């Protein structure tokens, strides 16, 4: 690799050619603060917090985007640099709603942390005119409070990176603010509720709609039987909210915490993931054998579903009619389980703990009420669960590992990997191939569809037929496949699409990681690794081996794809406009 020789704070250093000052400094063990910078997607040099001195340069230099060159002498910690950074922070604070005490991001706010690091002692140093913005809480999943926005535009970049671009800068100069075109409410534009803007926001300007009060209310209601279920990826991320290493599997502690929070039953969405595979694999084989619409595309990700409805309504027939695992879970609880318990489903409250903000939207979709009551009552994110645990005074890290309740705590490794891109495809293949061939797979690892690449393709020989599959995560990548379907150049039979880049482990409801982590740590891969490890350690790795699933079909549903299964576990979609 070609290198250049530079000096940082007098220390000689050899770094790869083309590195930015920010990257070079990291190699030298120096962290330069950033606010607006998101590697690859928001390299706009707007916030000016990363300014450093470069010998010979007329003004300060933007470390996040400025490439190093031979002989460059960089100073990251001079009086001038420190003064500039402090002034930048003071100016940002002069327009910022500083109600940190009541802010959900207090403690995880990047602005707050920088103010502390740079010794901002007077938050009102540049007090002056401010503009009051009304909240936008029109969407089902989030609230935008521009009074806390620092205009780093990371949300805009995240939305662009999803290929959505429903938010951007409006007005200019001091009046600049982020919103949709013509300041339309978010609910009236083609936002897919993925929440990538939320996890990329450095402050409390964009937050998920908090539904924890509703959960607590249900728990405290003696007449309600409250069932919680946790999505596959939650066990791989929840620990981060309590300072644990990225990629720590906290399934046991999570179950223990949920029990201590007072849920009547602590079940696993993984059970429903296995159920999804039963239905989806059956649907796929049916489409292949009976000339159905192909390629079939997975339907687990509600962000992706909304994307398809807004942007590619003509491809709706390609969508699997299977409800998502969360909704299948709820539907099963309020029909089969309620019947088993002899309970009226109206007394049941199903709570999903999800990596996803679009799940909040999904619970409100029509045609998702198999029992006559909504399949799922409340969907909360990983972050909301973490807050509930925190406020209940539970020492998360010190909890013993506990097991999910029976029977819907049972699941296979195939279900666990749903949380990472390619996981649903791999799980479906494990079941579909065995169903089709009637033989046991020598290896259940379909490694070609694993990994964090944007788009993955593979072809498998199944009982003499070649099955071509594709996997995409992030709607911008999905678009590539969808355009291929539209122009007739897609020769796949089965496609998995997840709305968020990397799949659910990087969902919009996951614990906040500061940009510095997002920029320099492969967050997605490390979280996914925890799921694949869990799969590998599981004795049962194929959905059709799940005993609880077998029992459910035997006692209640009959066959996968049966009339009853369709009534309870399948749904339909609608074409949506881009602007209302």
């Amino acid at each position, binding site marked *: 690799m070609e290198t250049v020789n530079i000096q940082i704070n007098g220390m000689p250093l050899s770094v790869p050619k083309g590195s930015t000052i920010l990257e070079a400094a990291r190699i030298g063990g120096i962290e330069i603060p950033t606010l607006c910078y998101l590697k690859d997607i928001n390299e706009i040099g707007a916030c000016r917090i990363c300014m450093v001195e470069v010998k010979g340069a007329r*003004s300060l230099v933007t470390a996040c985007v400025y490439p190093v060159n031979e002989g460059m002498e960089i100073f990251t910690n001079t009086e001038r640099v420190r003064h500039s950074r402090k002034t930048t922070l003071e100016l940002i604070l*002069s327009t910022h709603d500083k109600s940190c005490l009541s802010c959900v991001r207090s403690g995880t706010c990047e602005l707050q942390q920088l103010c502390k690091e740079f010794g901002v002692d007077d938050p009102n140093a540049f007090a002056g005119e401010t503009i009051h913005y009304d909240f936008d809480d029109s969407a089902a999943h989030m609230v935008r409070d521009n009074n806390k926005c620092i205009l780093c535009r990371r949300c805009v970049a995240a939305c662009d990176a999803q290929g959505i671009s429903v938010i951007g800068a409006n007005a200019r100069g001091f009046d600049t603010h982020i919103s949709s075109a013509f300041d339309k409410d978010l609910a009236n534009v083609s936002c897919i509720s993925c929440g990538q803007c939320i996890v990329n926001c450095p402050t409390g300007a964009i937050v998920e709609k908090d539904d924890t009060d509703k959960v607590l209310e249900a728990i405290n209601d003696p007449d309600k039987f409250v069932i919680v279920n946790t999505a596959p990826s939650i066990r791989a991320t929840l620990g981060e909210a309590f300072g644990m290493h990225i990629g720590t599997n906290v399934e046991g502690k999570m179950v223990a915490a949920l029990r201590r929070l007072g849920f009547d039953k602590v079940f696993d969405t993984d059970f429903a993931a296995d159920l999804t595979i039963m239905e989806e694999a059956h649907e796929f084989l049916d489409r292949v054998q009976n000339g159905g619409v192909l390629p079939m595309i997975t339907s687990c990700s509600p962000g992706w579903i909304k994307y398809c409805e807004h942007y590619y309504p003509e491809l709706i027939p390609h969508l699997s009619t299977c409800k998502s695992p969360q909704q299948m879970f709820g539907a099963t609880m309020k029909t089969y389980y309620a019947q088993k318990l002899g309970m009226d489903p109206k007394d049941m409250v199903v709570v999903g703990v999800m990596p996803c903000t679009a799940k909040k939207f999904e619970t409100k979709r029509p045609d998702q009420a198999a029992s006559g009551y909504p399949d799922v009552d409340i969907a909360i994110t990983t972050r909301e669960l973490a807050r509930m645990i925190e406020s209940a005074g539970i020492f998360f890290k010190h909890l013993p590992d506990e097991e999910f309740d029976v029977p819907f705590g049972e699941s296979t490794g195939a279900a666990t990997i749903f949380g990472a891109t390619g996981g649903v495809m791999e799980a479906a293949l494990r079941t579909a191939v065995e169903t089709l061939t009637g033989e046991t797979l020598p290896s259940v690892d379909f490694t070609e569809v694993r990994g964090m690449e944007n788009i993955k393709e593979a072809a498998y020989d199944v009982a003499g037929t070649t099955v071509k599959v594709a996997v995409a995560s992030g709607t911008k990548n999905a678009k590539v496949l969808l355009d291929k379907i539209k122009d007739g150049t897609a020769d796949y039979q089965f496609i998995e699409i997840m709305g968020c880049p990397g799949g659910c482990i990087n969902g919009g409801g996951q614990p906040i990681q500061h940009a510095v982590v997002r920029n320099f740590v492969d967050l997605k891969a490390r979280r996914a690794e925890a799921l694949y490890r869990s799969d590998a350690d599981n004795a049962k790795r194929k959905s059709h081996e799940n005993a609880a699933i077998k029992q459910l079909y035997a006692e209640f549903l009959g066959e996968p794809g049966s009339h009853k299964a369709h009534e309870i576990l399948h749904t339909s979609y609608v074409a949506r406009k881009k602007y209302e």
Partner: protein
Amino acid sequence: MYRSHVLVCGGTGCTSSNSLAIIDALESEIAKKGLQEEVKVVRTGCFGLCALGPIMIVYPEGSFYSQVKVEDVPEIVEEHLLKGRLVKRLLYDETVTMEDVKSLQETDFYKKQHRVALRNCGVIDPENIEEYIAFDGYMALAKCLKELTPAEVIQIVKDSGLRGRGGGGFPTGLKWSFTAANEADQKYVVCNADEGDPGAFMDRSVLEGDPHCIVEAMTICGYATGATEGYVYVRAEYPIAVKRLKIAIKQAREYGLLGKNIFDSGFDFDLHVRLGAGAFVCGEETALMTSIEGNRGEPRPRPPYPAVKGLFRKPTTENNVETFANIPQIILKGADWFASMGTEKSKGTKVFALGGKIKNTGLVEIPMGTTLREIIEEIGGGIPNGKKFKAAQTGGPSGGCIPASLMDTPIDYDNLTAIGCMMGSGGLIVMDEDNCMVDIAKFFLNFTVDESCGKCTPCRVGTKRLLEMLDKITAGKATMEDLDKLEDLCNYIKANSLCGLGQTAPNPVLATLKFFREEYVAHIQDKKCPAGVCKALMTYSIEADKCRGCTACARKCPAGAIEGKVKEVHTINTDKCIKCGVCLETCKFGAVVKK
């Protein structure tokens, strides 16, 4: 063949004072007299002396009629065109002496001017390519394509010493060589016609008066740098310029001077026009290109520079209109000819838009090195109403001011930079003793605050806070500590902003602080505005010995702040006074004073 040509200015200034109706009237009057075979009416671009518009010149005599009205047309046709007698009352008074009528070139306004960029403005019909060709148009392009290699063209531009006229002053030849050095499947030439400095309109005049020279120059630039496509980014507020540019491009295409295989040389080049919506920041080169690409006009960090990744991320050369306007002449007359004008490091001429407290407002083109005194006192005709010169503002909202003590500084890039000022695109606003320098700084900063794109923190928030500090000073509420804070914030914004707009936004404040610090101190410590501009610091009072008790002021006062009986001395209640100044205007005895 016509025996007489009547040139009427069709630039924006004269058009807005009805020159098109004058042209219509001329044509019908000429037809009425049966002179249509003998006299030709030409609608030209700007003559420069906008203060005296609408302007009309009759050749071969060269008679310069100013402030012509439609009603004057029959007399001009009857007397001058038919009977050969000058209509003296309409002649520009500078051209009329006791014994003779002088040519325009001998007048103070024109004699020190040297028109290179503006050479065809006010001379040819900009909508007729044949007239441009008749004035050596497209000869330079032919020379380049037929006789010179691209490297030779760049060398000529380098040798000429031409520097960017948009304000930065970057050597043009060097800029071209950077783009030429980068291999790419597509390169672009961009003409920055997003003229935005308050009061500057030289680019508009060139596009209105001589659009073909921009087409020709951009094509030459394309040949020199290896670009085959060009964009002219022009403000939508310049409809006449846009129209004429589009006509020029269409005509050039028809004549084979744009398009494929120009002059059978194998070189292809074509031009597109893109309209800007008027954001000042789009004059910044990266913002301009972002806007052409169809996005919100906001600057992007450099590097990468446009020569590496410019428009659509391809190598791009971007020059200002006036810079391009010099190119054909440089190619035709040679680098030495151009370099013979100007100062050691600033060659050629510069167009300035004179405005403010000066008699001859308008466009002037002068050799670099001309002093401010020559521009103001000779070319500009001095300050009206016998007022004293205080300072000249150059470089618009990015620039600074030149105080009276530096009036003899030869104007070029480096001298202006040395005194904390800048050339800018050439707006030159003259201020007299009635201008408050804090107020001037506020005016320009107000502009920048409005025009900030809002992308980077220092510009978006910093300039706003700076303006609030100035407001505090002019309201008499600031302390000397605030002055330190003001300077500190200025330096912070300069060093930390993303683009030129923010980096130069504090200049009007810093320059006025440098030369007129005492005015700031007077506002802060004495709570006085020495020029009597800042309302909050003024008090109106009535001098008892001059007041006759006529009650006129009291009757006019909209706030009921003046008390007094008939034939008795009146007084102003300062608590009620809104400082509108009506009393001062009303008093016939000079009894009302403003302090």
